[in-house]
């Protein structure tokens, strides 16, 4: 692989392909594999430096991989610019960039960073950086614990400048798989190279971060609980959320194409600043031929499966509780958890303990990473208990194999299972969608299907038809390949930085 070659497309990826298995990784891999006449480079954002091994075999049309660690930033040359005017400008620009998504301010700032070769010495550790901390604290977080604010702000800046100080690899166009840090990098790439950028949002980044942020104990600020001190109703969690919203806005402003998987996501994108004229929907697609050819093998025991990583967002524990209810009605039920277990070992251990506690050892099997093609033929129902999803590939893949799904009402699962409002003709239900977090409702929906063979057979057929018609990978890939070629050839008017 050569860094000097210019790739047709540079994928900007955050904590995903090719180092972490999952829906976004699989989507990225398929996109690259199905476009052999295009060259790709990967710009991977990872949290910290450790041994990261690719979990996908990299296709030969990936010509370069550049890793950026979000906790590392070059020291830079100077600790002081001795240019009061520039200091004042940056003092205004930095909060505008981070919290308001001001793309013009970002252009100016990137130019300054590279012109003066700025790094951590000036941007994070200098007296200039200190005056900025006090300014932002007084404007946004007055009344909260100052030292906690300081360290959080430094974390925000470290990630921010880990991205902005990077010299991006050259490519004809840039495609980010999310907003957030990857979106900020895409904006950075567009500004540095003047080449088009686009973003495909699977889940809405700010929504997903909101869940994580509000459950993070380390962000709890006890001073915030004492309202005598707080003059503004804001704390560290709001600061982090505002940061991610700012990055989303920057990404939308920089990208020419703002793509998402289903139309409900567009409402949230517009809320975060996406422009209507740039936004459109390109759903996920799967290899229908591959999955539809899986032979169904009747099992002695009714079999259900959750296909996904053993991580909290997939809510494996609720699935286990649902199995506990199901076995009371269907004593010979067999349940799988098909997916990697190494991402969150602590959570994995908690799930195993729950299995022991509920005495589900004879019912549940955790397989680890497997090829689901080997299992789809024996599964009667696919279960999805996730807290947050976009357009889960597992529902589509299972559907193509004739396996209906029982899902929590997240993302576009309702569209996948019941069909979109514009589906003509309306095909009917390919399973069931229930409220999230309710193990009993999930169990009841599963029992309802397993006890009604006719209903189950009809759901099988509906899902197969639906996936073939609306979620075929071939059609989806075609859209992207045309998009890449068009953007790759486009001349972006040089803007004066």
């Amino acid at each position: 692989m050569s860094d000097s070659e210019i790739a047709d497309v540079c994928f900007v990826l955050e904590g995903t392909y090719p180092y972490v298995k999952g829906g976004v990784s699989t989507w990225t891999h398929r996109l690259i594999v199905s476009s052999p006449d295009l060259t790709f480079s990967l710009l991977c954002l990872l949290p910290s430096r450790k041994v990261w091994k690719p979990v996908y075999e990299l296709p030969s049309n990936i010509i370069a991989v550049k890793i950026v660690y979000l906790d590392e930033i070059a020291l830079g040359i100077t600790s002081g610019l001795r240019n009061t005017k520039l200091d004042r400008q940056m003092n205004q620009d930095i909060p505008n960039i981070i919290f308001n998504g001001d793309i013009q301010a970002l252009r100016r700032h990137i130019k300054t960073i590279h012109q003066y070769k700025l790094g951590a010495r000036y941007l994070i550790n200098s007296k200039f950086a200190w005056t900025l901390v006090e300014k932002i604290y007084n404007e946004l977080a007055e009344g909260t614990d100052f030292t906690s604010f300081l360290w959080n702000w430094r974390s925000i800046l470290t990630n921010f400048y880990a991205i902005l100080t990077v010299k991006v690899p050259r490519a004809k166009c840039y495609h980010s798989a999310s907003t957030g840090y990857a979106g900020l990098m895409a904006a950075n790439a567009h500004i540095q190279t003047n080449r088009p950028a686009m973003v495909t949002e699977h889940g809405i980044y700010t929504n997903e971060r909101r869940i994580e942020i509000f459950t993070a104990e380390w962000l709890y600020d006890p001073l915030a609980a004492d309202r005598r001190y707080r003059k503004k109703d804001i704390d560290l969690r709001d600061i982090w959320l505002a940061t991610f919203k700012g990055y989303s806005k920057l990404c939308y402003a920089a990208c020419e194409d703002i793509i998402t998987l289903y139309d409900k996501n567009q409402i949230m994108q517009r809320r975060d600043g996406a422009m209507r004229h740039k936004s459109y929907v390109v759903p996920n697609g799967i290899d229908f031929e591959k999955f539809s050819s899986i032979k169904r093998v009747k099992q002695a025991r009714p079999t259900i499966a959750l296909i996904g990583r053993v991580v909290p967002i997939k809510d494996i524990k609720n699935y286990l509780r649902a199995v506990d209810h199901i076995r009371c009605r269907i004593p010979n039920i067999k349940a799988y958890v098909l997916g990697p277990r190494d991402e969150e070992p602590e959570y994995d251990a908690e799930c195993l303990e729950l299995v022991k506690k509920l005495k589900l050892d004879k019912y549940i099997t955790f397989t680890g990473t497997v090829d689901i093609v080997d299992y789809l033929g024996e599964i009667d129902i696919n279960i999805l208990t996730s807290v947050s999803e976009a357009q889960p590939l597992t529902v589509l893949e299972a559907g193509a194999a004739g396996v209906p799904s029982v899902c929590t009402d997240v993302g576009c699962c309702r569209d996948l299972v019941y069909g979109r409002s514009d589906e003509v003709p309306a095909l009917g239900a390919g399973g069931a969608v229930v409220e999230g977090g309710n193990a009993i409702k999930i169990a009841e929906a599963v029992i309802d299907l397993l006890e009604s063979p006719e209903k189950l057979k009809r759901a099988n057929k509906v899902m197969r038809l639906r996936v073939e018609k609306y979620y075929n990978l071939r059609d989806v890939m075609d859209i992207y390949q045309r998009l890449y070629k068009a953007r790759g050839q486009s001349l972006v008017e040089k803007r004066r930085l």
Partner: protein
Amino acid sequence: MAGVAFSLRLLANQRNIFGTFAAVGVSTLLSSGAWIFTILMVFALTLLAQAFLDFQASTVFSAIVSYNFGFTLVLTGPLAALLTRYLSNKIYENDTSSCLSILVLSIAVFFVLTVLPITYFYGFFLELNPLQRYFAFSTFYLVAAIWICNVFVSALKNYIAVVFSFCFGSLIAILISFLLTPILRSNAIYLGIVLGLSTVLIGLLSAIFEEYSSQWLKPKIQTNNLIKYWPLLVTGFFYNAGLWVDKWVLWLMDPNSTWVAGGIVVLVPYDMSMFLAHLSIIPFVAYFFLHIEPKFFVATKSFYDSMRFKSVLDDIDKRHLSLLVVVRRSLRELVFIGFILMLIFQFLMPKMLILLGDRYELLAITRVALLGSYFHALAFFVMTFLNYFDLKKHVAMLSILFFSMNAIMTAVTGYLGYSWYGYGYFFSTLFVFLISLVILIREVNWLKYSCLIGNNIESLEVKNK
């Protein structure tokens, strides 16, 4: 140190002369023991030598004493600075189990590093009789060990034991010298001094051993800490060298310097004048550590506590402002009090010189040296404030500046002639005081930044590429 100062204030508040003098004496010894003790001991031993030895022998004796006290102070300076930081870290961690081991190790390391050159210098190079060689060699290492123990002494609760050791040791020196005169004649003083210093050292070691854990644990020494604390090494060396460099320069430059024992040189009039002037610092330093430092400590602790524990910026700013007020008032007070003390000594100096045997010829240098000592003490206090704020690089730079300025300015005065002697020291201390003041005024406004970021930049930058 402030902790002991609070106890000493109680002593001083006893409203009797004993309490006052005890507080002054103890605070001086504990706070700036090495420097003041050097001045007192060199001065006292020189006087004592004149009572027991002929002119030639007393000159050799004084020279050896000056050299030993001076060079051990300089050579143990970096070690003492590092040990002070090590000890304060261990006290903060509430784990002093390895402190005894580090004390013994430090003395052993110093011995190993210096034994060959010192043995050659006193054993072969200089023309000394066997008793003088024994005296020179022993006092060198006894004094060095006392300097090293002094680091631990300041943290001792039983400061009375420390005072007792110094007093009893001094008494032993004098008594033994007098008692052994009939047997050893003029050589009795050598043995007396050695026994006296040994008594001091044993007293200090006993107090230290009693205070600290009796465990013998291998101390964990991390070489990256040595690199991280390089400013302490620089300060320890250059500040102490700066105290002596003016004498070294004039010893070599002045045509009237006295060469003794075939290899060491002294300039008695200058040395005597400087030691006399330095005596004026004793009450000034005592005042600082009894009255100024405790208030400063309270304000500094309040400020740093606000940074350590959850506080809003408003509260931190208020404590910062209080600290600024304390610094401003303290400096004003010190400038005024020091000036008054300096004037008193200027007035008393002629009478003191008469008492020392009509040494009126030293008056000119002593008067200028008193001015220099005034600014020297002020600079020392400002550097103490800077140390409190952990601005060790600034203190290191000031130490180098003090050493360089004192050397250069003294060399210039050496060239200009005898009537200019003392002015080199005066101008250098004035300059260093002014520079240190500018640094303090600038840095004290950025204390929040220094505390959280500026003083930790190396460790923060290690995480960056």
